[in-house]
Each structure stands twice: as structure tokens, then as C-alpha cells.
């Protein structure tokens, strides 16, 4: 007898591009990592611990991208994170002094002091500077199901005609995952949910079982998915493609209508880094005159510059209400879908970038906690069952056949975000580098020693240049200077290696210095770019 009680799966993609600049004493963009550790990853783990302690069952699929794993396990960056926290605690103390006696703002300075002090205590003492192990712990306990994604979050559809580039992204990712967690993942997160027909063959070749595609890509698939977005579809290569739920997407992603836009939540943009005297902020901004400090005292309020002060307790209450509303809407959807799906369990798939919770939407972790708590209450009013994707597939192994259409979750829904007058120059170089890397694997099939080292570094540089994040930043204009330099540096490094190999020379000192700087994927084997038989 088929069980058709509806399911819901939450998926969090934790990812940052690789930014590590040991040649600088401080590098502003390394703070991207530090901010999300403090605001998203540590609070997530804190919530997981609390739920476990209270015996509240929860399930979540989590992606820890290979670049993020590389940074979280890097000694230098972990040391710098502690320095960052010390600096933030110092700024919080200054803020407490500056705001002493102010009934509205002093408590907010206290909040940041407590947040950064707690982060330091947990990161250093509780986790021993290794939060990857903490995620692994919850994975082994069965609370979270870990997935991987492309090695450097490349937007795969723009490399569809260079199969070796696709394989290199997948294979390097699987090795990175295995090195950290001791086993291969079953699920593969498509960077930017970028899918193209044919990708499934590559995923299948690495024994991956499932992935997630956009609603649009799935609905435009061939044939139309029998159960709409309420069931994964099975591709010809036997990869299950789960389908992102459009309603769940809108509720949270929408910058204009989504929950995070509510007036009581903390405003992301209004930061003392842009309000206070630069000389006061100078010791805390890594040599940058203006930038985000993380100290934000104002609520979203509305479309006005005249913001209201942030009230954490009101925002917390709202986050709980939003969790209830979110679930209520999903229940309505589930009931409607169940009406048509008598023979199988409808599933609502809710994938988000992890950093949306806590970093952008400051109260997002409270929302998630309320979501899990409410889900754990068994009553007739809540027909939904929280599952991981593997659990769903093991209970529903047979899925309707369909091939999703070329698609992504970026603006436009296809490849528009990566093919724009501001960033389309990138592909000329990254695709050429990937093709030349393939050529090198043929020219140098069995190298060892110095030549193997240089070939491995060449492979790292190609992967780094392929990161989809840089092209997005070029398009948005934010951090575009850094993005352009990152791409050019990797392409330059690759081209230099290519020329050295052609001239049968190796600049050992240069290579050693580069290996130390761009030390991602220490186990790299350049054959990941080799043509597959």
C-alpha cells in the first residue's frame, strides 16, 4: 500500500568562492568567510545542538562546497578568523562605551559583544577550530545529509561541450568530500542550479544518485513531469532530479515580497561602517575606508532612509510567526497535491543558499529553529513529514521519466547572468584553459616529481578560474575589481605553466610560491581533466 503522506525537504547550500591571500597581512574579502561563520555556520550548529539536546528530530540536506571546505580547514584562515573575532570584540567594546546609557542602542552593542564572544568561545574551545567535524557529527547522527557540488561552483551549462571540464569539476568535488567525510556523496548540488540535458551522464559516471533543478527547468522538461514539481523525475541516465518548489522559493528568496523584507527584521545594508567617522572605524576595516563591519542597529522599516531602531525581541517573534506561515502555506500546497497524487507521497523541495539564513536574514536561524520545532509536533493538522532526499528516494524509488530543460536559478532562468557585456569575456579564457588542460593530460600522461606538481597546479588554476561567483560579481559591479583580478590571475598562472611545459622548463621557486598561495585541493590529480574512455 503506497504511503502518500506528503513530505518536505529542506536543502541548504553552504558555499563561498576561494579567497585566501597569505601575501597580505589582512585582506578585506577574507571577511566574507569570517562573517558567514559567525552569522550562519556557528548559529546553525548551535541550533542543531539545541534541537538534539531537546530530542527534537530534524532533517536537512546540506551542501558544503569544496571551496568552503578548503577554507574552513585552512590553518591560516582559521587563525585569521580568531584575529577577526578579537577585532570584532574590541569594536563591540568600543561601541558599548560609545553608546553607554542609551536605552535603545546600548543593548544592541551588547548583542554584538555577546555574539562575537560566543563565536570565539565555540570556534576555539568547543570545536577546536574545526567546524567541519561538527557538521560531520550531525551527519553521522542522521540529522543532516551531506551533499557536494562542483569543485569551484562553476556554472556547468557554459562548459557542456567540454566534457573533461565537467568531469574535472565533479571528480575534484567528490574527492574533496571524501577526504573530509570518508565517503562519497549521493547528492550533487548544481551550482546556480545550472542544468543542461546531458549533464546526467556525467553525474551518473560518478555514481551520484540525485540532484535538484529549477521549477522552470523541470516543467519545461520532456516529457512534462507527470507530477509537476511534487515528485523528482528520473532522467535517462537514472539520476533523480528533485524540483525546487516555486512557492517556497518566493516566500523566502523574494527581496521585495519575501519574509526577510519584513519591516521589523534587521536591515542588512545600514551598517556603522558607512555611518561613523572613518578614523574611529579604521582599526576594524582592514585598511578599507568604508565597508561592512557587521554592526547594524536598524530595522528594515520600509523604503525609507529614516530607519527605526532594531528591536531583537520583536524580530524574533516575527520569525516564529513567519515559520508558522511558511509551514501553513506548504500544508495547503501539500493537501492540494495529495488530492491528485493517490499513489505516492508528494514532496515539496525547499533549497536555499545557507548564508541567506543569519547573514542576510539575521533572524533566519530563528526561523529555521521554529520551523523544525513546529514540524516535530505530530498532529492531524500537520500532514507534512520532514525527510532527506535519500530517505524520500528509498521510499519512492520509482519516479516518472523526464529530462529537465537547460536552466538555472539566476535572473532570466537560463544563462543570461553569465553571458552579459560585463562578464562574457571570461569564457573565452576559461574554456580555452580547460581545453588546454585536457591537451596537457594527453601530452603528459604519466608524470611524476616536479612536472606532476606543476601539472596539478595548472589544474587547480583552471578550476579556480571557472568559479561562477566571479562572473556574477563582474555583472553586478560589486567587488568587480577583485573578481576580474582573481580570474586574470588564475588564467595568467595557467598560461604561464602551459608555456613552461611547452618550453620544457619549470620555475621551481615561482611554482612553490604559487602552491603555497593557491593551496586548494592538496590531493589534486591533474588527470581529472583527462578524456574519459
Amino acid at each position: 500500500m503506497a504511503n502518500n503522506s506528503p513530505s518536505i525537504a529542506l536543502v541548504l547550500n553552504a558555499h563561498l568562492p576561494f579567497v585566501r591571500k597569505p601575501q597580505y597581512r589582512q585582506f578585506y574579502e577574507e571577511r566574507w568567510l569570517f562573517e558567514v561563520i559567525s552569522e550562519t555556520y556557528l548559529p546553525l550548529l548551535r541550533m542543531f545542538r539545541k534541537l538534539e539536546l531537546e530530542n527534537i528530530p530534524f532533517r536537512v540536506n546540506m551542501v558544503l562546497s569544496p571551496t568552503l571546505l578548503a577554507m574552513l580547514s585552512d590553518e591560516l584562515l582559521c587563525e585569521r578568523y580568531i584575529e577577526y573575532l578579537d577585532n570584532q570584540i574590541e569594536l563591540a567594546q568600543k561601541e558599548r562605551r560609545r553608546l553607554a546609557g542609551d536605552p535603545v542602542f546600548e543593548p544592541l552593542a551588547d548583542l554584538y559583544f555577546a555574539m562575537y564572544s560566543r563565536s570565539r568561545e565555540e570556534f576555539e574551545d568547543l570545536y577546536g577550530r574545526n567546524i567541519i567535524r561538527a557538521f560531520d557529527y550531525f551527519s553521522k547522527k542522521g540529522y543532516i545529509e551531506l551533499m557536494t557540488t562542483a569543485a569551484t561552483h562553476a556554472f556547468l551549462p557554459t562548459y557542456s561541450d567540454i566534457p573533461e571540464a565537467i568531469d574535472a569539476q565533479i571528480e575534484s568535488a567528490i574527492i574533496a568530500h571524501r577526504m573530509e567525510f570518508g565517503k562519497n556523496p549521493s547528492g550533487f548540488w548544481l551550482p546556480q542550479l545550472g542544468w543542461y540535458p546531458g549533464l546526467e551522464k556525467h553525474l551518473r559516471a560518478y555514481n551520484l544518485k540525485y540532484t535538484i533543478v529549477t521549477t522552470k527547468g523541470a516543467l519545461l522538461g520532456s516529457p512534462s513531469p507527470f507530477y509537476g514539481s511534487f515528485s523528482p523525475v528520473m532522467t535517462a541516465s537514472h539520476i533523480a532530479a528533485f524540483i525546487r518548489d516555486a512557492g517556497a522559493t518566493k516566500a523566502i528568496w523574494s527581496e521585495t515580497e519575501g519574509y526577510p523584507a519584513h519591516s521589523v527584521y534587521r536591515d542588512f545594508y545600514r551598517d556603522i561602517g558607512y555611518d561613523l567617522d572613518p578614523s574611529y572605524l579604521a582599526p576594524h576595516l582592514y585598511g578599507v575606508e568604508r565597508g561592512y563591519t557587521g554592526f547594524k542597529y536598524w530595522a528594515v522599516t520600509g523604503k525609507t532612509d529614516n530607519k527605526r531602531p532594531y528591536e531583537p525581541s520583536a524580530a524574533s517573534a516575527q520569525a516564529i510567526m513567519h515559520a508558522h506561515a511558511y509551514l501553513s502555506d506548504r500544508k495547503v500546497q501539500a493537501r492540494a497535491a495529495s488530492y491528485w497524487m493517490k499513489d505516492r507521497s508528494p514532496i515539496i523541495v525547499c533549497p536555499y543558499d545557507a548564508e541567506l539564513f543569519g547573514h542576510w536574514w539575521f533572524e533566519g536561524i530563528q526561523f529555521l529553529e521554529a520551523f523544525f520545532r513546529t514540524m516535530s509536533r505530530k498532529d492531524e493538522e500537520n500532514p507534512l513529514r520532514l525527510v532527506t532526499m535519500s530517505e524520500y528516494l528509498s521510499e519512492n524509488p520509482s519516479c516518472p521519466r523526464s529530462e529537465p530543460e537547460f536552466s538555472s536559478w539566476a535572473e532570466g532562468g537560463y544563462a543570461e547572468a553569465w553571458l552579459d557585456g560585463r562578464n562574457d569575456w571570461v569564457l573565452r579564457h576559461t574554456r580555452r584553459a580547460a581545453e588546454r588542460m585536457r591537451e596537457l593530460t594527453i601530452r603528459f600522461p604519466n608524470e611524476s616529481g616536479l612536472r606532476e606538481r606543476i601539472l596539478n597546479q595548472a589544474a587547480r588554476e583552471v578550476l579556480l578560474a571557472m568559479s561562477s561567483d566571479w562572473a556574477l560579481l563582474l555583472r553586478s559591479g560589486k567587488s568587480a575589481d577583485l573578481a576580474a583580478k582573481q580570474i586574470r590571475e588564475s588564467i595568467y598562472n595557467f598560461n604561464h605553466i602551459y608555456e613552461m611545459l611547452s618550453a620544457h622548463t619549470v620555475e621551481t621557486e615561482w611554482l612553490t610560491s604559487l602552491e603555497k598561495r593557491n593551496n586548494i585541493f592538496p590531493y589534486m590529480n591533474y588527470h581529472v581533466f583527462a578524456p574519459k574512455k
Partner: protein
Amino acid sequence: MNPEILSLLSDEELRTLAEKMNIYVPEGLERIFLIEEIIDAYEDDTSDKVYSHDAPDHLEEKKLAGTGFIPGRLEDISIPDYYNETYINAIVRDPLWIFAFWDIADSTRQKYIGEAETSRLLLRISEATGFEPSFSYDIVVSFDDRKWYINVPHPKRSYMIDLCIAKCHKVRILARSNIVRMPSQYLDISSKLPQVTRSLLVLSGSEELHLIEPKEENSLRIMSMEGE
């Protein structure tokens, strides 16, 4: 769609695009105003598609909130503008646009630039239905061009692009691109779909995502922008 991309189109292509977008174009309308009209119509068309335009690009910007240009930071490394090879690549952008880029080896380039009076460089876009192209059209480009956004007539069909030199009514192919298959734009709602699927597609958001092909009298713009 932006003015930069549109400026790459010929006058004729702009007029065809405007026609497909149901924009009235008076005789003699200057090119710059035609581009403005297309952009305006396009923005009108997308402004009410709020449902899914809030794409994760927004979060990427927040997650990676940066500082802009910091003078002197990071070495300004230069890389070649192009590679001394002759090739052309085609990449799908969306159901109706291909992004093509190419290089021409210096020796070939010099040879034809010397004959610029009599030689023209062109892109020949062909529908790749089998072994032989079945339909094609040309876009004339200059020797300084190295990329082009190409508007193709039909989603769900395959195309390839030849980089050609035309001289004295003879056309020589310098390079041929990979074949690209254009994605579909609209749901194929045929009467064969069972009621359960039709209902679940609606519940899945097919209408809000504008995946239903508009009727003739209310035709949508040529480029769909609803992301997710």
C-alpha cells in the same frame, strides 16, 4: 537585454526584434530611439513579473559584499585579449540568443585584412538538423569584432555557426562552431497530458512562471526574463 547587446544588432535585426515584440516602429525612426523603444517595452514586460525575478544573484551580492576598487591592491596581471588560433565557439544564452566568440590566427587575419576592400568577414548561422545545414542566414561582422549575440528564430532547434570569409561571391569557412540546441521557452501543453499532470503543473507554478505560451492577440516579448 541591454543597450550594449542591442547595439551589436544590425538595423534590420533591430526592426525584426521590434516587430516580434509588437512595437510600432514609424518609418525612419533613428537607431538610437529604436533601441530605447525596445528597452522600454522589455522593461514594461518584465516589471510585472515580480513572481520570480528575485534571483539568488541578490544574495550572492550580499554574501560577497565588497569594497569596490582598492588602488594598488593585488597585482594588475594582464592576460592576452585573444589566442593565436582560428576557432569559433557558440554558447546558449536563452531560448532565442546564442553568444558566439571567435579568434582568427594572426597570419590569416593579416592576409584578409590586406584584402579588406574585397573581403568580408561574416557569421553564417545554420540550423543543424542533420548532416547538412537546412537553413542559414548571415551576419556581417568586422575584423575587429570577436564576439556577437545572435538572435535565432526558433527555440528547441539546433544551430551552428560558421566563421566565414566572403570574397567575390565565394564563401570560405574559417572555423565551424559546436552545435547548440536552444532550450524551450514554453510548456508543451498538449491535449494528451492527463488531467492529473495538468492540475499539478498549475499547482507547481506554471502560470506564475509565465510558462504558458501566450495567445496570438497577447503575444509575449521575444525574450523571457522570468528567472527563479
